[in-house]
Each structure stands twice: as structure tokens, then as C-alpha cells.
């Protein structure tokens, strides 16, 4: 039971200006599986917790909950590893990183604090979710929480929507990366979905 298959996330990221967002949503609605039901809207609160140590590198965990239907959905606790080696490798068309998703009870924030984690930052994510086969597409707006813990007072972070194309699958299934690349091609030129080197962004 504890062994489990390790899961990996294949990720492409990009952004779209708010003014063009409607066009993108329209195109995605046509391309995705949920044509008849329309996209799934979501409002999530994400809290990022960090556990720092003197010798070991810090560990970051993301706790996420749905603000629009707080009682029916469990909290999600997510661990995301660093991107796999070969980010500059042209043969790999997407970013690949290990990821663990755990559904938990609502006391996860208390639990993390008890474990020694500290809240690093939090944000509110509002957007739409599309699916196409195993591919998950989110178009979301990131909001800054002005008063800590208060999800009513929000400020948008930028005038763009974040677009993420991701597949979570057991490791070693590199063919999904090509499928994703093909799907991303269909969204051009509204949005350029690319593998983004997070380390480079961090250094800047």
C-alpha cells in the first residue's frame, strides 16, 4: 500500500491577456471533451507551506481547497518536485516533475503547522478547467490575498490569465508529452504554451 506508483506531472505553461481570454475559452470549449456540459468553473484557495531545515533543502507543500463548494470536496495536499534533469533537452517537449496529490481532511493546515511547516504565501485561483482525454487544461486568474486568511479581499496579480496544460501519469510515459505538444499547437497563436525553466525564473 505504501509503495504505490510514483506519479509524474507533464507540464506546459503560458499566459493569455484578459482581453483575449474569451477567445481562448471559446477555442478550448470546442477542443475539449466536455463540449456539452461546458467548462468547469472553480475557485480555489491555495496555501503554500514550507518546512526549512539547517542541512536539508526546504520542502514545499501546497494545500488547496475549493472555495465555491467548501463542504463537498476534500482538501488537496500537493507535493511538487523539482523539474527533472534535461530541461534544456530539446527532445523532451514538456517539463516533467514528480508530483504527489493527497486528498485530506480539512484540518490539514493545523496539521502542517504542527509538523513544523510555516505558511509561506497564499493566493486565490479562479478559473476554468477543461479536459481532453488525459490532458487537463486550466485557465485561471491568480489573486493576491491582501489581508492574510481573508479570501474576500482580493487583488488580481496581473492582467493575464495563467494557462496550464498538464497530465499526471505513472512515470516513463513520455508519449503523453507529444500528445500535449500537439494539443498546445492548436491553441496558437492565442497562447504560447512552453516548458518553462523555473530555475531560470528563480534566478532572475
Amino acid at each position, binding site marked *: 500500500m505504501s509503495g504505490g506508483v510514483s506519479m509524474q506531472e507533464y507540464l506546459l505553461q503560458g499566459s493569455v491577456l484578459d482581453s483575449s481570454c474569451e477567445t481562448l475559452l471559446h477555442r478550448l470549449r470546442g477542443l475539449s471533451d466536455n463540449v456539452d456540459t461546458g467548462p468547469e468553473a472553480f475557485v480555489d484557495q491555495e496555501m503554500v507551506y514550507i518546512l526549512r*531545515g539547517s542541512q*536539508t533543502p526546504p*520542502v514545499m507543500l501546497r494545500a488547496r481547497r475549493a472555495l465555491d463548494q467548501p463542504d463537498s470536496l476534500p482538501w488537496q*495536499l500537493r507535493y511538487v518536485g523539482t523539474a527533472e534533469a534535461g530541461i534544456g533537452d530539446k527532445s523532451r517537449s514538456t517539463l516533467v516533475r514528480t508530483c504527489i496529490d493527497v486528498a*485530506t*481532511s480539512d484540518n490539514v493546515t493545523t*496539521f502542517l503547522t*504542527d509538523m513544523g511547516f510555516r505558511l509561506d504565501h497564499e493566493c486565490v485561483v479562479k478559473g476554468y478547467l477543461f479536459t481532453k482525454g488525459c490532458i487537463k487544461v486550466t485557465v485561471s486568474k491568480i489573486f493576491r490575498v491582501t489581508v492574510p486568511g481573508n479570501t474576500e479581499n482580493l487583488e488580481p496579480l496581473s492582467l493575464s490569465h495563467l494557462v496550464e496544460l498538464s497530465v499526471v501519469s505513472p512515470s516513463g510515459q513520455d508519449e503523453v508529452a507529444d500528445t500535449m505538444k500537439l494539443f498546445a499547437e492548436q491553441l496558437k497563436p492565442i497562447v504560447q504554451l512552453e516548458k518553462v525553466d523555473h530555475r531560470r525564473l528563480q534566478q532572475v
Partner: protein
Amino acid sequence: MGVTCVSQWPVPDGKSGQQAVEMLQRRLEATGATKAGSFCVDCETYMSGQSITPSKTAHVMHSTGHPLTCFAIMDSGTCLVADSNFDQLMTKLKGFYAPRKGAKIEVKGPRYEYVDFIVKIGTVTTGPTASSRGILVEVEYTPCVVPNDCWSLLTEFMGTFMGDNKPAIPQVLASKQDGIYSPTDTILQYLEHFNNYRKSTGNK
């Protein structure tokens, strides 16, 4: 999930644990209970490294009653209910929390059903040698969810096969009173007993 009471069953002098379990089984069968499978509850203990002060302990427990769930309890008493891949997450924290050697404790045994009652008789074992520590008896009354309502009913039932050794009301149940019983409460009872066993072996 009904109200549950987990209690320690003393092994009489001059008898092996196995004999005590068999006697209990015979008595239970005499009341008309039928055997329905087996059960297992296990607990792994993680200790924090030097990077976290003060040092903390985390217990990760699984139960066959909830095969896809993992219970994580901090020494502060916070109990997180999570998906079973929480175990994978713990491995990502190995720089901070490491499993305590030989501290794995497990209770295993047959499961009985009698009308709306479920009785589990388990032998407690610890460490890699799986040495026997004692016997735990779990009695659950499935239709009722309020501990205060059915405690006297539960004791009456326990008296039928445990005789004078029936337990006093466990701390967890007493503090619940008119609250609604949850699976976490059963796990906390097990943890309390496991800790007692550890303490007693530590003293020896």
C-alpha cells in the same frame, strides 16, 4: 461507522496470548457471533530530525476498515485523514522526519459480526521480529453514532463475552459525549493503546 470501543484484554497468568485469544473467540462464538474475515491496524512512527525544535513525533496509521485511507497523528493530537498515498509524501520529508527503527506496531486478528455489532480480536506485535505484546478487543455498534447514547448498551454487550474484564469508558469516547463519532476516534483509541504498550516495554 458506529460507536467503537477499543480495550486491552489481559492475558491470564500461565497462559499464552494465543490461548487467551482462542478463549475469547470461543466465548464470542457461543453468543452467536459469526466470523467474517480478518482485520489489521498498523502504525509507523516518524521522529523529527535536529532541524526541527522542539522535536516532534508523527504517527502514520492504516486500518483495514478504511483500506484507502491513511491517518496521520501528530503528538499535538491533530489527526489528519488523508488518501493512502500520504505515505509517499512522508518519504519526501525524509530529511525532516525519519521512521523510528523497530517502532512499527501492528494489531492483527479475526473479525466477528453479531447482528449490528462488529467485534475484532487482535494480537499486538511490534518490531521486525513481530513479538507479541498483548491483546486488543475492538467492539463497534454500527447503527449508533452518538457515544453517550449507546455506551451503556455497548458495555452490556461487552459484558456478555468479556465478563468482568469489560473496560471502563475510553477517554476518547468520554470526551466526545454527545458529539458524532468518527473513524478518527477509533484510530486515536488504537494509538493510545499502542503508546501504552511502548511505554511499558520502555520501562522494562
